[in-house]
C-alpha cells in the first residue's frame, strides 16, 4: 500500500514543528502528530482558548517565533493533535504510526508515511527520596505544566529543588505567579554554569532574568543543597533540606515548611518509539540513553530521523535547529533539492557543545542513594521499597532488568519512566534504552479492533 504522507512528524514541540515546517517548505507532504490538544510540547505549552490570554508570551521565552511557525505549518500540513502514539512500525519503506485519538474515548487511528521524524521530547527525571510520593510533591515540569497550561499555581508555599538550569525558570515562574517560593535548592554548585567558558551570551541573559525575578521576590537560591526528605500525614507539610558535600552526602540539615515541592534532577529523553523501530542508541554525557544520529539527524534506521531531546537533552533552541536539519535531511533523502546550509550545522554543533557542558556541570552524584531508607519507595507504581531491591540483588539480580523481574520496580502503570533511572543507578549501571512495545496504555478492545486512518472517520 502506498504511504499516505511523505513524512510523519511525532511531537509538536520546537523540534517537531520546525522539522515539519522545513520539510513542508522543501516540498514534502507532511503530517504532524502530538498527544496534547494544543501545540508547543512541554516548553511552549499553550493555554487553552478558554482563558482568552492576551499576553500568553509572559510565561514563555520565545513564544512568538514558535507561534508564527505553528500558524504557517497549520496552513501547509495536516496536523493531528490529541493523538497519542502507542506504536510505530516500519516495513518495506513505509512507516506505520499507530495512534489513539482523544483523551477519554480513544479511537485507534493509523497513519502511514515514507519517512518519520521523532521529536518526542523528554520528561523530568525524579530521584526517589523518603516522602517523594506524598501529595504535594511534584516534578518541576509538573508545576510548570500546571502554570503554563492551566494557570494553576502549584502551591502557596513552594520549595524548588533538584539540579540543573531548569529549576530557575520554574522557581521564577512560580514566584512571578504569586507563590511564596521558600527556596531554590541546587544540589550541584550554584555557579557551575556561570563559570563555564561555553556559556552562550543569550542564555546568560535569560538566566540573569530569572535571577532578577528571584531576587525581586527575595527567593534564596542555594547551591550544594537538596531536599532529602518530605514530611506530612496525607500531604506535604515540610521538607528536610540538607547541605551536601561534593558527593551529595548530607552535611547538615534543617526543616523548611511548605505545602508544595517542585523538583527534578534533569530529564529523561522519551525513546520508546525509536527503540521500537530498532534505532541505535548511545549513552549521553550523563549516561542517559539517547538516539544515535548523524550530522543530518538520521538515525540508524533508513528514513527515520530524530531531533530535539531524544538525541540528547539540550533545550528548545537546539531542538528547533535540529528539527530544521532533520526536515531538510528527510526532504533531501526523498529526492527534493535541498541546498546545503553549513551554518545551521555549525549552530547545532555550538549549541550541542553547550548542552553537553550543562549536563557535565549538573551531574547526579551517587550520594543521593544515601538519602534512601529501607522503607523508601523506589517504585511508586508497584510500591517497591529499597529493601526489596536490595533483597533481589542479594538473590542474584545483578542488573536492572533482573531487579525488575524479581522485585517489580518498573512493572506498573508508568513502566519505569519514573523509577528507571534510579533503579539503574541502584543496580550500578547506566540506564538502558527503554524497551516498551506499548508506548501508551491501550484498551484491549481498541487493540483488538481493526485500525483506521484518521481520514476514514
Amino acid at each position, binding site marked *: 500500500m502506498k504511504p499516505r504522507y511523505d513524512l510523519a512528524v511525532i511531537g509538536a514541540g520546537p523540534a517537531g514543528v520546525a522539522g515539519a515546517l522545513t520539510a513542508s517548505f522543501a516540498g514534502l507532504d507532511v503530517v504532524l502528530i502530538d498527544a496534547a490538544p494544543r501545540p508547543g510540547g512541554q516548553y511552549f505549552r499553550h493555554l487553552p482558548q478558554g482563558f482568552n490570554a492576551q499576553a500568553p508570551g509572559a510565561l514563555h521565552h520565545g513564544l512568538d517565533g514558535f507561534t508564527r511557525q505553528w500558524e504557517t505549518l497549520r496552513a501547509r500540513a495536516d496536523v493531528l493533535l490529541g493523538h497519542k502514539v502507542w506504536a510505530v512500525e516500519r516495513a518495506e519503506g513505509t512507516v506505520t504510526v499507530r495512534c489513539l485519538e482523544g483523551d477519554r474515548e480513544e479511537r485507534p487511528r493509523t497513519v502511514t508515511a515514507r519517512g518519520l521524524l521523532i521529536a518526542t521530547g523528554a520528561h523530568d527525571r525524579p530521584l526517589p527520596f523518603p516522602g517523594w510520593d506524598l501529595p504535594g510533591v511534584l516534578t518541576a515540569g509538573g508545576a510548570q505544566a500546571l502554570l503554563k497550561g492551566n494557570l494553576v499555581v502549584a502551591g502557596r508555599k513552594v520549595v524548588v529543588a533538584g539540579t540543573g538550569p531548569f529549576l530557575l525558570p520554574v522557581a521564577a515562574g512560580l514566584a512571578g505567579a504569586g507563590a511564596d517560593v521558600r527556596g531554590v535548592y541546587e544540589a550541584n554548585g550554584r555557579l557551575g554554569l556561570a563559570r563555564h567558558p561555553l556559556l552562550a551570551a543569550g542564555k546568560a541573559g535569560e538566566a540573569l532574568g530569572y535571577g532578577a525575578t528571584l531576587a525581586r521576590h527575595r527567593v534564596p537560591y542555594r547551591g550544594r543543597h537538596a531536599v532529602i526528605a518530605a514530611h506530612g500525614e496525607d500531604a506535604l507539610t515540610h521538607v528536610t533540606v540538607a547541605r551536601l558535600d561534593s558527593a551529595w552526602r548530607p552535611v547538615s540539615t534543617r526543616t523548611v515548611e511548605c505545602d508544595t515541592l517542585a523538583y527534578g534532577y534533569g530529564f529523561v529523553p522519551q525513546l520508546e518509539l525509536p527503540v521500537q523501530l530498532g534505532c541505535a542508541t548511545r549513552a549521553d554525557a550523563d549516561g542517559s540513553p539517547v538516539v544515535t544520529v548523524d550530522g543530518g539527524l538520521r538515525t540508524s534506521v533508513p528514513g527515520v530521523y530524530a531531533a530535539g531531546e531524544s538525541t540528547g537533552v539540550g533545550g528548545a533552541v537546539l531542538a528547533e535547529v535540529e528539527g530544521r536539519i532533520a526536515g531538510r535531511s528527510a526532504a533531501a533523502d526523498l529526492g527534493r533539492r535541498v541546498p546545503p546550509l553549513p551554518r545551521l550545522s555549525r549552530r547545532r554543533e555550538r549549541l550541542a557543545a553547550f548542552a553537553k557542558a550543562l549536563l557535565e556541570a549538573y551531574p547526579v552524584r551517587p550520594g543521593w542513594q544515601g538519602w534512601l531508607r529501607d522503607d523508601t519507595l523506589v517504585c511508586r507504581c508497584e510500591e517497591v521499597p529499597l529493601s526489596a531491591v536490595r533483597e533481589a540483588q542479594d*538473590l542474584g539480580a545483578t542488573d536492572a*532488568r533482573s531487579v525488575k523481574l524479581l522485585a517489580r520496580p518498573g512493572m506498573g502503570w508508568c513502566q519505569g519512566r519514573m523509577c528507571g533511572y534510579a533503579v539503574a543507578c541502584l543496580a550500578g549501571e547506566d540506564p538502558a534504552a527503554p524497551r516498551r*512495545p*506499548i508506548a501508551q496504555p491501550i484498551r484491549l478492545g481498541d487493540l*483488538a479492533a481493526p485500525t483506521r486512518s484518521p481520514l476514514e472517520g
Partner: protein
Amino acid sequence: MPDVVVIGAGVVGAACAYYAARAGLDVVVVDRGPVAGGTTGAGEGNVLVSDKEPGPELDLALLSNGLWRELAEFDGFEFEPKGGLVVAETGEVLEALTGLAGKQGVEHTVVPSGGLDDYEPHLAQGFAGGVFYPQDAQVQPMLAAARLIRRGADRFGRGTLMLRTGVTVTGFLRDGDRIGGVTTDHGDILAGAVVNAAGTWGGEVAAMAGVHVPVLPRRGFILVTEPFDEPLIRHKVYTAAYVTNVASDSEGLETSAVVEGTPSGPVLIGASRERVGFDRTVSVPVLERLARQAVELFPALADRRAIRAYCGFRPYCPDHLPVIGEDPRAPGLHHACGHEGAGIGLAPATGHLIAQTLAGHRPDLDLTPFRPDRFEERR
C-alpha cells in the same frame, strides 16, 4: 572442586542445583547473565498438566506438579494452585477435550455450558462447556528460581550450592573422554559432572562439547494489562486451540488465548508461537490477535488497558520433548534443556531426575524418551 557445575541460572538450572545439593552434592551454578534472565524471566509461570497428551511429558508434568507443591511450602515466591479451565467453542471440541481428559487420567471435571459461570463469572457466553483441571497452577518463575537457589544454599550449607552470575562458559574441560568441568571467562571450574541447563541456548552449550542437541527458539509474546484490584479471572483459562498449537510443528504464527490473573494485579494474556530465530522486534499484528482472543474469552477485558508486552524464546526440540539425562556421546555432561513452553512446570521433576542420575540412583521416571542422542538417527 564441586561435584557438579550447572550451566544456567534459570528455573531448570535452579531446580537441578537444588535437588543435587539436597542429594549431598556440591554444586556451582554459573550464568552469563543474572539469575532468571533468560526464558524463565519471560514466562507466565505455567505449571500445567491439562495441556499434555498422555505419554512421557505428562508423566514428567505429574511428577513435577507434586514437587512444586512441596517447594511451595518455602516462603518467598508466589505459587497459586488455582486450577485451569479449558473451554470448548463447540460441542465437537468439547467431546474431543473430554476424550483427551479421559485418556490423560488426571484429576478433572467436565463442566457443562451452564456450569462455566460458576468457575469464571466473566467468561463470554456461548461456549459449549469445558474441562476443569484442579492440579494446574501458576508460579512466579523468576522469584521461584532465585529462591530455590537461595533455599538450597541455606538449607544444605553455603559452599554446597554456590551461584556465580556474570560468568560465561567458553568450553569444556575433559578428563580423557569424560567431561570434567568448564572453562569460563572467569577461569576454569573443575567438576565431576556438568549440567547443561542453558535453556534456549542449550544447543550452543552442547555444541561446545561437540554434541548435537537441536534446541531452537520458538518466540512467544505476552500482553500484560493494568493491575486489577479485584481478580476478574480466577483460574488459568484457555481455549482448546492452545492444546493443538502447543503440539504443532508449524513455523508460521499461531496464537491461542491463554488468560489469567496474577497475585500482583495484572492479567497476563498469551500465547503466540512462531519460529523466527532470536528476533525481538515487536509484532503489532501478534499483539492485536492476542488482544482479540482475550476479549473473545472475557468481554470485560475490552475496557481494560494493556500496559506492557514482552517476548521470550521457548527452547524447543523437534519432537517437543525436553532433553534430560547424561549424554553417552560426552559422558559427564548431563542435559536438562529444551522444555519448550513448559520449563517452569517441568523444572522440579527435571532437577529431581538429574540429581538422581548424578548421585548414581535409578531415576523415578524412565529417561529413554528424553535421551540426548535421540536425534542422531534423524540426521
